[in-house]
């Protein structure tokens, strides 16, 4: 590289780096220009995302089913074409059925909590270019959705609304590393903070150092002032591993969420909630747990009630 060219390159580099740092400084100082540019991008992107999502949803499933291309027989080709059409319709139908089932379930959960909700379809997932975990939904401020509103699915908490346009909203998933929510343990009513770790597991830190966490404890949202960002009583997850060592200052635990964040088709945004927490917890059956019911056979030796002591027949 010639000396003159090298100097020009370095000057160009310095100018561009300073420009980037200037933008970063403006953004961190809360200048609306940079925030506004992202809002405009979301407005431009949302119709494209909605269209692509509508097309891609059935087609994505269809790809896995289409086989045996390249057959030469005309009759077979015709049959395959008809089959393809039917499969495409079937995929579209099953997609609609799946979304309907999710919508029914999420409305059922919202109804039990007396929440006023706005249902929305997931039209995009967060970019792979960043480490944040988000989804985009096809309902926005025109449906009454504002930032910092609770988002739920049929099984429980999904996340919180991060930003909105008139027709879409971006939801920060509870698995996002920067996500934090106040929770209470249903058994003991101890309060703690649940944090996302970027994976399917979550970290719970109990605020009360003398409290205890047990495996299987159920966590519910504690609620926020004015029900934003979180309404109270929404199922969050279940404790799968507790660290109750005496040496630690705080009690911590690993938690699995009730909501399967990889399988979100329809979600609901809680627009308003009752001023008091639901009288009984809204506890769904956790997805991964298989419950086996065993009916004990009457035994002549042991009583089925735990309080009764075993008696010997004489």
């Amino acid at each position, binding site marked *: 590289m010639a000396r003159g*060219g090298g100097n020009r390159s370095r000057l160009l580099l310095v100018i561009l780096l300073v420009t980037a740092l200037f933008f970063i400084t403006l*953004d961190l100082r809360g200048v609306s220009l940079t925030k506004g540019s992202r809002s405009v991008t979301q407005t431009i992107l949302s119709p494209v995302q909605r269209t692509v999502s509508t097309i891609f949803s059935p087609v994505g499933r269809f790809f896995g089913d289409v086989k045996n291309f390249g057959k030469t027989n005309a009759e077979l080709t015709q049959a395959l074409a008809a089959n393809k059409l039917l499969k495409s319709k079937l995929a579209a139908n099953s997609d609609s059925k799946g979304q309907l089932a999710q919508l029914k379930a999420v409305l059922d959960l919202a109804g039990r909590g007396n929440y006023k909700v706005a249902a929305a379809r997931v039209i995009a997932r967060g*970019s792979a*270019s960043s480490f944040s975990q988000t989804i985009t939904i096809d309902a926005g401020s025109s449906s009454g959705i504002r930032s910092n509103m609770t988002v739920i699915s049929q099984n429980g908490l999904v996340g919180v609304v991060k930003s909105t346009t008139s027709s879409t909203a971006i939801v920060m998933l509870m698995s996002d590393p920067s996500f934090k929510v106040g929770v209470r343990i249903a058994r003991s009513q101890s309060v703690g903070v649940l944090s996302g770790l970027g*994976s399917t597991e979550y970290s719970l830190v109990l605020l009360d150092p003398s409290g205890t966490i047990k495996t299987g404890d159920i966590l519910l949202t504690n609620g926020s002032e004015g029900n934003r960002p979180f309404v109270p009583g929404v199922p969050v997850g279940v404790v799968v591993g507790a660290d109750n060592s005496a040496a630690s200052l705080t009690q911590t635990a690993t938690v699995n969420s009730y909501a399967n964040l990889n399988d979100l088709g329809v979600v609901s945004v809680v627009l308003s909630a009752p001023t008091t927490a639901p009288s009984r917890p809204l506890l769904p059956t956790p997805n991964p747990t298989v419950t086996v019911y065993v009916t004990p056979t009457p035994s002549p030796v042991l009583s089925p009630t735990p309080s009764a002591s075993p008696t010997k027949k004489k």
Partner: protein
Amino acid sequence: MSPVRIIYTLGFFFILFVVQESAVSLVHFPISGFSLYLALAISLIAFEDHNGAIVTGFLAGIVLDLSPTSNAPFGQWALILTSVAFLFAVNRDSIADVTSSPITFVIVVAGGVTLALIAYLCFGALLGEENGSLGHDATVLGGNLLWTVIFTPMFLPALRKAHEYSLTARER
């Protein structure tokens, strides 16, 4: 880099950004995700000369900063991709012409994507951003590396032709 090519490059990156945000991000890849945007941006940087690479990196970063799903401050990707582009520009002569061998090119692009993501993580940590557990970050990095290695050879010929077509007579 001529003003006309800057406009072309900006348009290309914006279309690519829309494709990434609306289509590629909908695909559930088995191991983490794939950033088509980063792979193509690094490829384009590798095709460019010194000044062209730096400007291309900056433009790619600015467009990526527009992502409404990003938690990072506006300008972070511009800073990262400009720096990565500069590294490419100063080292391309020492590692020979990376565009002449497809295998070398794929390795360099995959390495560039991984380097950009690591730099993004480190700079984000300096700014106090939450980036998740080490295991999660390693999965994202590993997944992007794997998918970049797999997908880059598929778009490489088309990208090379598109880049040659966009060059002015003087730049050729």
